[in-house]
């Protein structure tokens, strides 16, 4: 699971839908991908920066800036490259995603999070 996904995914439980989910016992891996400045520029306005900071801190990346890059920073290649690395190249291979509200745990195995719910929670 990538960090970019964790910035968009919510709890799947019917009456919860809270955001963000918190990583626990995460094992990370770096998977190199081609850098595309355009994609990062496209995605920045949609990121929830406060929640991204929380996630990054949980995963041990504390060097993330306090504010969302804007104006000039959007064309600064180094900033975009750092974001690319954090959002797309870092993979959470094993661990758990935990909902802060309802406490539901989603297991992550081999990089795939299990969002299947028993029917009393999902319907």
């Amino acid at each position, binding site marked *: *699971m*990538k960090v*970019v*996904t964790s910035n*968009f*995914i*919510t*709890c*799947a439980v*019917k009456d919860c*839908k809270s*955001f963000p989910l918190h990583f626990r016992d995460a094992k990370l891996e770096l998977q190199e*991908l*081609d850098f*595309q400045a*355009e*994609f990062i520029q*496209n*995605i920045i306005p*949609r990121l*929830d920066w406060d929640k991204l900071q929380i996630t990054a801190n949980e995963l041990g990346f504390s060097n993330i800036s306090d504010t969302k890059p804007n104006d000039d920073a959007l064309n600064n290649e180094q900033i975009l490259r750092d974001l690319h690395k954090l959002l*797309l190249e870092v993979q959470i291979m094993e661990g758990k995603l935990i909902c802060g509200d309802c406490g539901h745990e989603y297991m992550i195995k*081999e*990089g*795939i*999070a*299990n*969002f*299947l*719910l028993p*029917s009393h929670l*999902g*319907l």
Partner: protein
Amino acid sequence: MSRPEDVLPPDLFYNDNESRKYTTSSRIRNIQSDMTHRALELLDLKSPSLILDLGCGSGLSGEILSSLPGEEGGPHTWIGMDISPSMLDVALQRDVEGDLLLADIGQGVPFRPGSFDAAISISAIQWLCNAETSDVSSEGRLRRFFEGLYACLRRGGRAVCQFYPKNDAQRSMISAAAMHAGFGAGILEDDPGTKNSKLYLVLTVGGGGLKGDITGVVQGMDEVDVLDARKRAIQNKTSSSKKGDKAWIMRKKDQMERKGKVVKATSKYTGRKRRPAF
């Protein structure tokens, strides 16, 4: 040919063996790639985007999304959802670039509002028409799916879902569910009437007006006939005749004749008013 939907639920049908067969069959791969390219054409994305792949399976369509050349708007980043663990396992072995989730799209689409630029789904949503246990219904599954999808697409975003409906009832059930969720919905049919006929449900969020939906999407495409039921309804309304006038009588006589009833011949007096005697 039997329909896999009638055999088993998707998570059981696509076991290790079926998933491998599905992914290695060159016939299926060709069809999937054609359909993905068609769907991309309908999505009309101009720059690298974040795409949701519903029922991504082993990543056959995702592979095309991440390898799309720059001049066609790519390469895109995608997040795939699928209910079959075996399919996802094959995707892992094939080292796809997208992010994968094991999830049932019939339970909803758990993303923040406005997360995605577009969504794509190849040969998946007909599975939603099957309710495998007594506590779920196909209508409920379709409703949760389309409501979740509507919420997580950004305004002006599009979703293209290629699907194989079993019959016309399923086809209208799916498009009605999409419209209920708030989508502008239309169906594009490739090679209609043949064995290779392919249906694409084109869903639009916002945009407004007639041009904001599928009629706007296919504008400028070659060899596409637009059959707009709404336009026909508007035309019918204006030309519909009042009860009792000549056009109405002629229509009724036609109807009766078709039913095989004996109908008086039509003359110049048909439908004319009788003048008062004095």
